C-alpha cells in the first residue's frame, strides 16, 4: 500500500540574529493510510517543527530549506500559501497541545465548526454543516451536543476542549491528522479518555495519525510504528514492538532506560550524560556523539546514514551494520 505521507530529507532552518538554527536537519519518514505513527523526542529534537512543516505553519525567521513532503504524491513544501490552504483543515488537520490554539475564545463552538466546513466547501448548506458539526461532537463522545454547540470554549474543561479540537480536526474527514502533544497538558484519567477516543476514531474512520510527543509510554500503547528524533534528525524508526523491546540506537536505549516505573524500584535510572547540543552549533558527525557510550572516531567525522535492519527498522548509527537485528 502506498504511503499517504512521505517525508524525504526534510530540512527546516531558522535564520536568527544569533545564527542559523537547524531545527529539522534531514528527517525522512513515512505514514501509511490509516496508520498510527508515533514521533518521539525531547525538547529541541525538532519533532514539533516537523509537524508544523508538514502543515506549512513555519513562520519567519524559519523556513523549509530542503527536502520533500509528499502527501499523496503532491509535494507540500513547494505549494504556495494559497494552495496549502486547500489542504489544511481539509485533507490534513492538526491538533495542538493547548486546545486554545484551535478554539477561538470569542466564538461559539458551532460558529467555528460551521466556518471550518464552509470554508473548504461552500456548496454545503448551513443546515447540513450544522448537522455535520453535531455528528462530529457525537463522534468524540460529547453528550448533549446541541447544548455544547451553543457554548463558548471557556465553558468547557481542558479535556472537553481537547475533544472539541479533535472533533474540529475530524470535520472534513481528513486523510491525516497531526497531533502535537495532544494529551500532555491533561490529567491522567482524562488523558486515558482522549487516547481512547483517538484510537477508536482512527480505527473507525481509517484516518492516519502522526502522534508527536515526548512520552514514550503513550506511543507505546497506540502506535504501530515509532520514530525517535534527536537534535533535528530521526535516529531510529521501526515497528512499535521492536523499538520498545529491543532498541538499537544508543539514544533510544538511554531514553527507555530513563523512564521511571515500578519495575525499576531501588535501582538508579539510566542517565544519559550531558545535554543536547545547541542546534546552532551541531558537531560534525553524529549529533549524539558527546553523550554516547559507544562513540568512536567515525562518529565524530561522519553523520551516519539510515541503515535498514532485518526487522524492518531504520537506524542512524555507525555501530549498526546493514541487515543487523537486535
Amino acid at each position: 500500500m502506498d504511503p499517504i505521507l512521505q517525508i524525504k530529507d526534510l530540512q527546516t532552518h531558522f535564520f536568527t540574529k544569533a545564527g542559523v538554527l537547524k531545527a529539522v536537519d534531514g528527517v525522512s519518514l513515512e505514514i501509511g493510510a490509516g496508520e498510527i505513527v508515533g514521533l518521539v523526542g525531547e525538547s529541541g529534537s525538532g519533532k514539533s517543527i516537523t509537524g508544523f512543516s508538514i502543515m506549512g505553519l513555519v513562520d519567519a525567521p524559519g523556513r523549509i530549506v530542503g527536502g520533500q513532503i509528499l502527501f499523496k504524491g503532491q509535494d507540500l513544501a513547494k505549494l504556495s500559501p494559497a494552495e496549502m490552504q486547500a489542504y489544511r483543515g481539509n485533507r490534513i488537520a492538526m491538533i495542538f497541545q493547548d486546545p486554545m490554539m484551535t478554539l477561538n475564545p470569542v466564538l461559539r463552538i458551532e460558529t467555528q465548526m460551521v466556518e471550518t466546513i464552509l470554508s473548504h466547501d461552500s456548496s454545503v448548506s448551513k443546515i447540513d454543516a450544522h448537522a455535520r458539526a453535531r455528528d462530529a461532537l457525537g463522534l468524540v463522545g460529547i453528550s448533549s451536543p446541541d447544548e455544547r454547540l451553543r457554548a463558548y470554549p471557556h465553558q468547557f474543561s481542558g479535556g472537553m476542549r481537547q475533544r472539541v479540537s479533535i472533533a474540529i480536526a475530524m470535520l472534513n474527514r481528513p486523510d491525516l491528522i497531526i497531533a502535537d502533544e495532544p494529551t500532555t497538558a491533561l490529567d491522567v484519567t482524562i488523558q486515558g479518555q482522549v487516547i481512547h477516543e483517538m484510537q477508536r476514531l482512527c480505527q473507525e474512520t481509517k484516518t492516519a495519525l502522526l502522534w508527536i510527543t515526548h512520552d514514550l509510554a503513550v506511543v507505546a500503547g497506540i502506535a504501530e510504528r515509532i520514530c525517535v528524533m534527536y537534535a533535528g534528525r530521526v535516529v531510529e524508526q521501526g515497528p512499535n514492538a521492536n523499538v520498545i523491546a529491543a532498541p538499537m540506537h544508543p539514544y533510544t536505549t538511554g531514553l527507555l532506560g530513563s523512564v521511571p516505573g515500578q519495575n525499576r524500584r531501588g535501582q538508579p535510572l539510566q542517565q544519559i550524560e550531558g545535554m543536547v547540543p545547541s542546534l546552532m552549533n551541531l558537531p560534525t558527525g553524529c549529533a549524539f556523539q558527546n553523550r554516547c557510550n559507544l562513540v568512536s572516531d567515525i562518529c565524530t567525522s561522519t553523520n551516519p546514514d539510515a541503515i535498514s535492519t532485518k526487522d524492518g527498522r531504520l537506524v542512524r548509527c555507525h555501530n549498526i551494520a546493514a541487515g543487523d537485528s537486535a
Partner: protein
Amino acid sequence: MTPLLTVSNLSRDFVKSLDMVAKVLNRLGQNYREEVVHAVDDVSFSVFKGEIVGVVGESGCGKSTLGRMVAGILPPTSGQVSFDVTQAKNTDIPDALRTQMIFQDPFSSLNPRKRVIDIITEAPIHHKLIAPSEKRAFAIEMLQRVGLDPDTLERYPHQFSGGQRQRVGIARALAVSPEFLVCDESIAALDVSIQAQIINLFVDLKDSYDLTYLFISHDIGVIEHISDRVIVMYLGRIVETAPIETFVKQPNHPYTQALLAGVPRLEVGKRQYEPISGEIPSPLSPPTGCHFHPRCKFATARCKAEKPALREIAPAHFSACHLNDEA
C-alpha cells in the same frame, strides 16, 4: 518509632468574599454566596524519618496546596503541621528552616537578577549559619554536591538549562541543612532524560544527607519508582495511603484503581484504554458525600450521602471507601 512530621486535620480554604455590590444586593433580596474552595479538606498523615512519601493526584486534588502548608509557606485554615525537633540532626538551625521546598518551574524558581553564588548563600548568611568570608567556599561545595561545575558560580540563571536550574534550586534548599524536603512537581518541567538525572540525584542526596521527602507528583511512574509510601488525593481529600508494594499490587480505592489502570505504560504492544467516565469535578462545587461517587463504577446511595472516613484496612494501608465496610 515516632514520626518526624505529623499533619493533623489540615485544611485550607480559599474564599472569594463578596464585594460591596454583592453585599448590597444581598440585602435587597438576592442570594449571593461566598465562593469557597476547600483545596485541602481535613488531611492527616505522618512521615517517618528517612522515608520518601509520594503524594499523587490530578488537578484540583490539593497536593500543591498541601505541600506549601507542610513547607510553611501557606498558613492553614485549620489543623496543624508538627515537626519533631528531637529527631533533628542539627540543633542550631532555626526551626523555620528545617523544612524546605523544591519548586516546579525552573524558569521562575530562581531570582533572575541574582548570581548563583548569591542565590545559594543568601539564606545561610542571613541566618548567620556561615560567615560572609566563607561564602565562596561554601557555594562551591554546594554546587559540587548537586553535580554542577563550580566555575558557574558567577553566572545568572538564564545562562543555565532547565535541569541545571533545578539543581541550583536543590543546592539553595540544601544550603540551610534542612531535614525535610517537599518536592512539588520538581521534575515535571524537565525532559525525560534530565528527569532521570534529577531523580537519581534526589535518591543520592537522601542517602548522603539523611533527608526525608514528601514527593508530590502527578506522574505515577515517578511516584512508583521513588516512594516508600504513597498518598492518593482527590479533590482535597486523602482517598488512600499505602506502602508502595501494596499501592502497586493491591490498590483498594476505586479511584486509585482507575488511576493505575489509565496510566500509559512502557510495555510492549498496543493496548486498549478503558478509561473511567466523567470529568474531574470543579473544586468550587464538589459532589456530596464521597467526592468520587459520580465517576465510580461501584457507587451506592450511601456514597452519595455520606463522606467516607479514612480507615486502616490492613497494616499501614488506609482507604476512604464505604465498600470496605461491607467486607
